[in-house]
């Protein structure tokens, strides 16, 4: 021990100050975390089914109402004859999945906006008045982005088929319509419950727009085309392929839909005619690593920027992917699975110059007296493709409507653009889901519509007319 150290003060000035500053800093981290956590997690915490405070708010406040964008009531709490509170859904089945139900667990907007609906932000003075009068406080009302006329059109257009329709504004991300079938009447959810639960096959409660996973079929050619353009930015327009109705892989064979032969096609017409052989041929040439990167960028196998429940789309491409699998992937078959909403998001990005706006359902929250509690503004998620790439895809999608598989959308008061798909899900029987995804007007896109009809057959014949009725309801006034 050095003599200096022996004389040294034990607990000198410097060390005490350091330790003090250190602990104070630690507490600032603690306080920051505490405030941040409480502020960012309050909704999720209250919505947790283990949180008994929901009942507490239920006793204090009357649950708020849910409105459509035009001010129509989609859900409200009223008193029945015996004075008990009941939740009423004036449109019955029409908004079943979008608005959801309350009894038997929550779903849809009833679940997503639960926090706001439960709480009452009327001024403290009014709360006291209500309490003195022995009444419950009126809960906050939620205004959605959903449009009744559009939902109506989509609901009726889909008719008795099983499937899904989603419509959104590509410039803002507002979801205007969201229909899933088979449906149910949320007013009678409790009495229907047993029946719905026992039916394993229909999946009545599943919101097919956000949670239904389907093979994308030819609609996936949007992605394949994008990848091909990215790999061949100079020469993609000089691509040629002569289609003889089918193409051989190492151990498999891919045929065009219903055995058609497309002859010599360039990329544009491979797309507009939806030539499987030509796309399988492209699939053989794609760089697997670059393709995987593009898929990541387009949110396959990734979380989507959504504030409500959904399923992730999946497609794994890696260095080990076989040629057969690449051919299947290129035409949207094989292991690929996508939700209708995800496909609508990709279409919206192409329609919006490459930029994806986050899709959303809640527009604003108001108190019973009309005071604003919270407003949800459109939010940009990120650029999914360059402006040029978006322009090329849009142009090709226009060709589909003009001369290809989507001609049932041509000759209208507006010009539409889109891509059809017939996704095979049962090879032996040759059964397929009918897809369409597209937007209109082509020059200044205002509405994206994505349709899937389960087991109907060709997208051009079945899905396009459904989409057309939704476009008509919005654009052909």
């Amino acid at each position, binding site marked *: 021990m050095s003599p200096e150290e022996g004389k*040294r003060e*034990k607990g000198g000035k410097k060390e005490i100050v350091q330790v003090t500053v250190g602990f104070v800093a630690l507490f600032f981290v603690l306080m920051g975390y505490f405030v941040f956590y409480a502020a960012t997690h*309050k909704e999720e*915490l209250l919505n947790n089914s283990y949180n008994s405070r929901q009942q507490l708010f239920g006793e204090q406040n009357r649950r708020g109402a849910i409105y459509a964008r035009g001010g129509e009531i989609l859900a409200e709490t009223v008193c029945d004859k015996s004075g008990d509170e009941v939740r009423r859904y004036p449109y019955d089945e029409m908004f079943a999945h979008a608005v959801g139900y309350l009894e038997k667990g929550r779903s849809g907007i009833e679940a997503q906006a639960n926090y706001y609906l439960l709480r009452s932000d009327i001024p403290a003075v009014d709360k006291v008045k209500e309490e003195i009068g022995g009444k419950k406080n009126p809960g906050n009302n939620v205004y959605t982005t959903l449009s009744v006329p559009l939902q109506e059109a989509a609901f009726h257009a889909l008719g008795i088929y099983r499937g899904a329709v989603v419509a959104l504004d590509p410039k803002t991300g507002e979801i205007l319509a969201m229909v899933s079938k088979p449906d149910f009447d949320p007013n009678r959810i409790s009495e229907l419950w047993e029946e719905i639960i026992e039916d394993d096959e229909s999946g009545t409660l599943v919101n097919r727009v956000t949670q239904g996973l389907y093979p994308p079929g030819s609609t996936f050619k949007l992605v394949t085309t994008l990848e091909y353009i990215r790999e061949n930015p100079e020469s993609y327009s000089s691509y040629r392929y002569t289609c003889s109705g089918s193409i051989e892989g190492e151990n498999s064979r891919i045929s065009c839909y219903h055995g058609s032969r497309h002859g010599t096609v360039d990329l544009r017409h491979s797309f507009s005619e939806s030539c499987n052989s030509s796309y399988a041929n492209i699939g053989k040439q794609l760089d697997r690593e670059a393709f995987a990167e593009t898929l990541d960028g387009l949110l396959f196998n990734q979380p989507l920027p959504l504030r409500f429940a959904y399923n992730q789309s999946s497609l794994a491409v890696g260095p080990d992917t076989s040629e057969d699998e690449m051919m299947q992937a290129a035409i949207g078959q094989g292991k690929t699975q996508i939700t209708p909403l995800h496909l609508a998001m990709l279409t919206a990005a192409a329609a919006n110059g490459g930029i994806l706006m986050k899709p959303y359902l809640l527009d604003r929250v108001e108190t019973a007296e009309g005071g604003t509690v919270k407003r949800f503004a459109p939010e940009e998620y990120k650029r999914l493709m360059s402006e040029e790439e978006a322009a090329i895809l849009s142009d090709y999608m226009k060709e589909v409507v003009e001369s290809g598989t989507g001609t049932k959308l041509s000759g209208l008061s507006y010009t539409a653009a889109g891509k059809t798909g017939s996704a095979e899900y049962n090879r032996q029987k040759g059964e397929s889901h009918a897809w369409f995804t597209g937007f209109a007007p082509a020059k200044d896109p205002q509405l994206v519509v994505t349709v899937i009809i389960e087991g109907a057959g060709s997208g051009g014949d079945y899905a396009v007319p459904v989409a057309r009725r939704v476009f008509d309801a919005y654009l052909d006034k």
Partner: protein
Amino acid sequence: MGEYITEFSKYLITLFASFYTYECFAVFRYQTEEERSGIYLRQNLLLFLVHVSCFLPVYVKTGRIEFIFFFLFQQIALYATIVFYHLLYPEANRLIINNMCFLLAVGFIVLMRLSYDKAVRQFIITVVSSVIGLCIPGLITRVRKWKDYTWFYAAGGIAALGIVLALGRVTNGSRLFYSVLGVSFQPSEFIKLVFTFFVASILCKSLSFWNIALSALLAGIQIFLLALSRDLGSALIYFVTYVIMVYLATGHKRYLFAGLLGGGAASCLAYRLFSHVQVRVQAWRDPWSVIDGGGYQITQSLFAIGCGGLFGLGLYQGMPDSIPYVETDFIFSAITEELGILFSLCLILIYISCFIMFMYTAYSIRDDFYRLAAAGLGVVYIFQVFLTIGGGVKLIPLTGVTLPFISYGGSSVLSTIVMFSVIQGLYLTGGKRYVPRGGKAGKRR
């Protein structure tokens, strides 16, 4: 009328508490206690206002006449503590006393809201503890040779913790309590004071490598005994206190790093060996996946925290009872739920202001031993606050230690009051190192 009181009292509580908190830091603008006396008086008034505005909604809700008497007794006890302390020890730091009384008052109110019987029990223990606390500075001054009892401190600590390990009562898987003559108490709460004295005295003897190694061995035995009793929170407090005191004594950062390394290794080992450690860590990393088991407590605590908002739901308007062990381990979450985030932040700041005053006091003590012991006690105190609040908000895993002065628990209240009094005693006895005379930095010696 009642509804108005319930609805508006929470805003008043937050308002008064923020003024009080402001004064807690305003003291540091002045060097001497005389200059600060105006602040202290304002604090005493604000303490009264916060206490009353907390009590009114409690009374409105319950309407029980005995609550009024209980409230009056609380008032008397708190102000008697403040007055007697000042009369007996005019030199003692009044910020520490005021903050102690403020925190005790908050504790009474919250316990009263959770359980009247527990609040009364806590109150009686607090009154006894305050009387003991009043004697302590005098005791510290009279007994001159505190620094010579090194081996007695070490032997006492090891013996007491060993007895608990061998004979203690098992509660929730931990051996924490030991009963003497029908009174059950938690020795680790008291031994931490003795432990601090032990570390301070052994380090004052010599800073040779072998002496430090010996201190590490003796401290390590006590920490090991605590870990075996599954009193992980205390083990952690002892450990951190030891490492920081060694750093304070030597000024060598290498001891901090060595402590960090050793602590990290010990934590990993504990994680591998003990299933209850794994349960705690699991409940911290993802409580939602084990919400039915190990994560239940912490998720209920988070529900309470997420529910309150800035001003809280108001007393009796929330559901703090849904958190298991709310009155001991999760009282902070109960406060956040009903009194709000702003009030909780005020509480944290009041704890910090106490700590800064402890360290400031320690810093101005001339004698090495007294200074080191005072700083060590400051670390014991603030680290415990960090563990309990940090655990309740899920910043760190739960350790199950109490929130000083507020949590329910006789041993906790008594030991914290004693600790505060010991620090005052050390300050009054150790002699002042600096004589601040308006200048920014005083001269050494």
